[in-house]
């Protein structure tokens, strides 16, 4: 399940943010009467269709997995969090329909009418992200129900579930992450193209639009992430202790960058005395809860991994901000991207870096919550299925997703090659598809 989600989160991010990029290109194209921007928007809409289609498939599998892998979890709390998925269903459906309308609408609707059919896609993407991430927030900060004697949920207050305590920081953090990943990923594709010498206006725009969005999002993300970390220190102190490898509860806690977590503290790594306490409470006197405040079996596993993932995520975000500042400086001085190829090289790796950061963040929130599936309410081991053969399924899922991932990348590459050869391509919603040939033609 974690693996499926780790795969789905990339596609979902694209599903949330890609339509926005496409609409920005569309807007610029209509506003400035710019055929290059319009062509970008049209191509992006087709790429969005492919990733959306694969995302829909992985999403369907996920809804199966809730039952196949976590029947106890769903049985006890389905009535509590399920409604969020029902709401998500509406957003998903709306998004699917309007993506199809948008793609069908090219050349069939007038420019601005067509643009407006894309707007619901963006709104539905954000709404869908809200509902799904809110489920995860609820697992981190469960509320809006009481436990009955048999362990089932009663007195459910859905408003408190939908607007649970972790929503204000988790949801914006994920939506911004989606825009960051998508922005840097698209920009990196065009950066590679430019490095290979395709420096036409099409590539330049294809780089500038997503890069600008991502570079604006990066510092906001840093601030939101920082707020989130402080909130976690309050709400889930053990998760925070795991992220920062804090063994004992004390003040003046040293902040370690990387290093190996052991029971006697962090070995190796760069230590900044007192900084961890400062980050939590803006004062080195702040007391930070340590892992030893709870029993050993209530602590998250893989402590070093957790710590490294957190540091990597923060590190990548910092580098993204630096990249943004570099870009902003050059733009402010000469209305152009920095001349050195190193800038394009940096953008080229930023897409992968953004995905790494996304996955790291995912690991931090999920592994950090262990051993709980619902924080301090239900243990993961109590939630799993009683059916045997789960490992077989896991292996099969792994293999299929490897194929699915490779195939998706291959398809997108093929599309891009065909575009370069100035051909049209067909996509699942295919607007350009001809009707099948009558009897005498073809062959």
């Amino acid at each position: 399940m974690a693996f499926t989600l780790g795969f789905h989160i990339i596609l979902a991010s694209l599903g949330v943010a890609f339509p926005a990029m496409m609409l920005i290109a569309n807007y610029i194209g209509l506003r400035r009467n710019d055929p290059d921007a319009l062509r970008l928007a049209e191509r992006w809409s087709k790429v969005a269709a492919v990733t959306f289609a694969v995302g829909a498939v992985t999403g369907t599998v996920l809804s199966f997995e809730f039952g196949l892998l976590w029947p106890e979890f769903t049985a006890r709390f389905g009535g509590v969090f399920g409604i969020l998925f029902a709401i998500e269903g509406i957003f998903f459906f709306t998004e699917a329909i309007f993506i199809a309308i948008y793609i069908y609408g090219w050349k069939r609707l007038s420019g601005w009418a067509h643009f407006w059919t894309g707007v619901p896609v963006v709104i539905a993407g954000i709404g869908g992200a809200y509902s799904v991430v809110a489920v995860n927030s609820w697992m981190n900060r469960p509320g809006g129900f009481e436990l009955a004697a048999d362990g089932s949920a009663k007195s459910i207050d859905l408003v408190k579930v939908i607007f649970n305590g972790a929503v204000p920081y988790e949801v914006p953090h994920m939506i911004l992450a989606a825009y960051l990943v998508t922005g840097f990923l698209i920009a990196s594709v065009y950066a590679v193209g430019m490095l290979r010498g395709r420096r036409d206006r099409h590539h330049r725009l294809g780089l500038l639009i997503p890069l600008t969005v991502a570079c604006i999002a990066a510092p906001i993300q840093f601030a939101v992430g920082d707020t989130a970390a402080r909130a976690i220190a309050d709400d889930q102190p053990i998760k925070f202790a795991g992220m920062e490898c804090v063994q004992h509860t004390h003040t003046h806690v040293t902040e370690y960058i990387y290093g190996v977590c052991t029971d006697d503290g962090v070995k190796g790594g760069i230590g900044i005395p007192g900084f961890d306490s400062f980050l939590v409470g803006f004062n080195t006197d702040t007391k930070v809860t340590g892992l030893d405040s709870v029993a050993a079996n209530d602590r998250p596993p893989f402590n070093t991994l957790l710590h490294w993932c957190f540091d990597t995520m923060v590190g990548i975000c910092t580098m993204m901000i630096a990249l943004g500042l570099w870009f902003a400086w050059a733009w402010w001085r000469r209305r152009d991207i920095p001349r050195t190829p190193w800038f394009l090289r940096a953008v080229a790796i930023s897409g992968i870096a953004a995905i790494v950061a996304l996955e790291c963040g995912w690991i931090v929130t999920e592994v950090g919550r262990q051993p709980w599936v619902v924080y301090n309410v239900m243990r993961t081991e109590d939630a799993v299925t009683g059916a045997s053969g789960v490992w077989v399924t896991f292996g099969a899922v792994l293999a299929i997703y490897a194929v699915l991932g490779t195939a998706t990348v291959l398809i997108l590459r093929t599309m891009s090659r065909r575009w370069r050869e100035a051909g049209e391509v067909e996509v699942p919603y295919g607007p350009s598809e001809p009707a099948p040939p009558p009897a005498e033609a073809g062959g």
Partner: protein
Amino acid sequence: MSTADAVAGVLWIGATLYAVFAGADFGAGLWTLLAGTSERGRRARALVDWAIGPVWEANHVWLIFVLVVLWTAFSVAFESVMSTLFIPLSIAALGIVLRGSGFAFHKQARRLRYRRFAQRLFDVSSLLTPFFMGTVVGAIASGQVPVGNAAGDPVSSWTGPAPILTGALFVATGAYLSAVFLVSDARRAGDADLERYFADRAQVAAVVAGGLAVAGLIVYHADAKYIYDGLVGDALPLVILSAVCGAAVLAILWRGGRRGTRPLAIGAVVAVVWGWGVAQHPYLLPKSLTISEGAGAQTTLEAVLIVFAVAVLVVLPSLGFLYTLAQRGVVEEEPTPPDPAAGAGDTRA
């Protein structure tokens, strides 16, 4: 009618929509599998591609809808079904993934070999999902799913005669619906030859599905007595309606007519699905869990109904808009000879 019954009704609406739309969609896979490599088979495949292209995505949504409503409103039933019937449900999910990717990729694949492989993947997985979904329904109907986490037998629960026959019935029904739809699609595309081709197949599928349905009644009499009693009791009018609709489609097609076949075929399937629902009432899992026992908290049930109402208000108009556009697009685009780059060029390297 209680709130729980209303939610169960909503669940059934979702199941009906899934049966009709996804059934037809999956059924198309059987026809592309059987189409072979002849020139006519190639054109039949191209027609299928063209017909299900724009809407194939939407069909999964009904399934997700059913699953979400089930786990939100009837969490215990969801847990019991998903854990006991782990194997067939996993295979059905596998079929969905493979089919979706096969369909998405076979148009894009450059080499003939990959394209063929993607097509085969699509064909075979189109059979897997409905068959194993059918075994799940058969297992539930024959009372093989007790309440609890993996409380039933992981294998024998869905390998009895009733589940297997139900699986076969699902495949046949999908193929039947799909052939009836494809007759109309062939007509829209102006291909009289394919129109006859699918009309013949629709009649064969109708006879097979009808035969399996009768066999199913006999097996249910032995294995799923509760459902059988319901089908010949309260649900009898629906069963008769279904039989009448199915026979009418057969008669129209046999006489060479086309008009009215689609609504009648849909009517036959809808009547069966609701017949099953009525026969099973008031049980969610026959003889072990009733709808009211399985229902979640009142607030949750009400919220599900509200969300459903909003969904109807938001989704139906936009869906209508999409279909209008799609139909208009079809009308605008005259059937054209295949573009060498397009998916229709299957026999070319």
